[in-house]
């Protein structure tokens, strides 16, 4: 019997997440070609690209849910398959069954479904952090879109993860809720978390990020929002919507 994979990266606090030369294809249809990036602790990074650019696939590779045909993903110096619990993936809202009979509290507690028994203090702290403690006993489908997204974020915070990968968290929520979510993500980055946030939108809201990575099968641009805007000449092709 094989021993359970052990991740020693946790011992060093919050190590960087690195992707090196990732190549991935679905049924021989190339999705990602030679993608390399590093997420440093305490950074808020946007992953921008059009639909089908490979953003979700990249996030699933970075979390270890998919395995690249070439290249590797490392957390510190450890392969990601040994450290999957330390990288939390917040899925697109379309992947969740919002009508499932579950309260906000129970949903957030799922973040530790494979970990130690959840203490009430951990749960309350996660709920408090995203501003949902007063709504903890409500059913998930009784929340607004923004509150539902914050519930998913709180669930990710319950994992022993310092790297958060968020798949289009701002999609289909109203502008005030979007601003609140962006502020929350900023606070988490300032607290030492590494956040990679995918979006197919492009606009002024990107200024909130430390760094922007533009992807279209491969990395097209990588830098501060100003640097990326300067580097890309065909910004209009990416749309001009407000989100992160």
């Amino acid at each position, binding site marked *: 019997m094989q021993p359970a994979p052990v991740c020693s990266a946790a011992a060093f606090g919050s190590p960087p997440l690195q992707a090196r030369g990732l190549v991935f294809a679905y049924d021989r249809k190339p999705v990602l070609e030679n993608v390399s990036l590093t997420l440093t602790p305490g950074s808020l990074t946007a992953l921008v690209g059009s639909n089908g650019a490979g953003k979700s696939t990249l996030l*699933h590779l970075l*979390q270890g*849910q998919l395995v690249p045909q070439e290249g590797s993903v490392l957390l510190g110096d450890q392969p990601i398959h040994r450290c*999957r*619990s330390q990288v939390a*993936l917040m*899925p697109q809202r379309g*992947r*969740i*069954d919002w*009508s*499932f*009979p*579950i*309260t906000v509290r*129970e*949903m957030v507690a*799922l973040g530790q*479904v*494979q970990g130690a028994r959840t203490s009430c203090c951990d749960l309350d702290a996660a709920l408090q952090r995203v501003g949902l403690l007063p709504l903890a*006993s409500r*059913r*998930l*489908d009784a929340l607004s879109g923004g509150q539902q997204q914050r519930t998913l974020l709180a*669930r990710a915070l319950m*994992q022993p993860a310092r790297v958060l990968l968020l798949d289009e968290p701002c999609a289909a929520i109203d502008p005030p809720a979007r601003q609140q979510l962006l502020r929350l993500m900023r606070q988490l980055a300032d607290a030492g978390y590494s956040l990679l946030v995918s979006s197919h939108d492009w606009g002024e809201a990107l200024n909130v990020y430390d760094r922007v990575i533009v992807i279209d099968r491969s990395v097209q641009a990588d830098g501060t929002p100003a640097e990326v805007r300067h580097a890309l000449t065909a910004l209009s092709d990416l749309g001009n919507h407000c989100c992160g």
Partner: protein
Amino acid sequence: MPSRPSAIWGITAVVDAMPWWLLPLLMALLVGVLCPAAGTLLVTQRRLLQANLISHAVLPGLALAMAFGLDPALGGVVSGVLGALLAERLQRRDGRSHEAVINTVLAGFLGLGVLLIPLLDLRLNLEAVLFGDLLAVGVADLMRTLAAAAALLGLVWSAYRSLVYLGVDPDGAAAVGLPVRQLRLALAVVTALVVVSAMAAVGVVLVIALLCAPVLPGLQRVASLRTAMLRASLVGLVLSAGGFGLALLLNLPPGPLIGVGCLGLLLPGARSR
């Protein structure tokens, strides 16, 4: 003398001393509790179509087990699970339509079962398989149903949070490393056990009604899967007891009457909209 046969003799003696209606009533109540509890899991896991497939795919196994002198229930469970596994494998290939594959496998297994009856020269009452005969159930049927109930309880007790995670966010469940395929296989096995055990009472067709109808009225109001299962079981219990009582009163077969009652459960909702 071995203790097991004497225990069965003991149970048989107790059953013989019971009034004729008590065993069918116990079976109706047990099936009324068990099917909606399992159905709540299936509805929330979006596996109801698979349950429908399993309920029809049990037929070839029943026929083969009878032909070889084995317990028909065992054959039915194996056959039902095989049907579910075959459908899962076929739909993974080339991204085929989930519904189309399941319905095709369902038709294939049902057809195979119907063909096996004359080919193996079996005396199998298809009407009893499809619609059940609650008044003809025996101790073995009750024991099978209790075993299915134990299997369901075991699954829920051991994997409750994983089932909740899998139901609300299947991708997330896979991402955190939950054994998604094993959980779904376990659910398919439990479904097959429930279907086969309930078949004697209400038949293959009406099992589906009892798996779905009692679940739906309260599902949008309860705050947990556990409460949803308890509530559905309570509704199923009332429905089965009411259907059984009415059947005795009107001298009608209880199984179909319970099936009609299931439809009646949904009508108030339709009127209010």
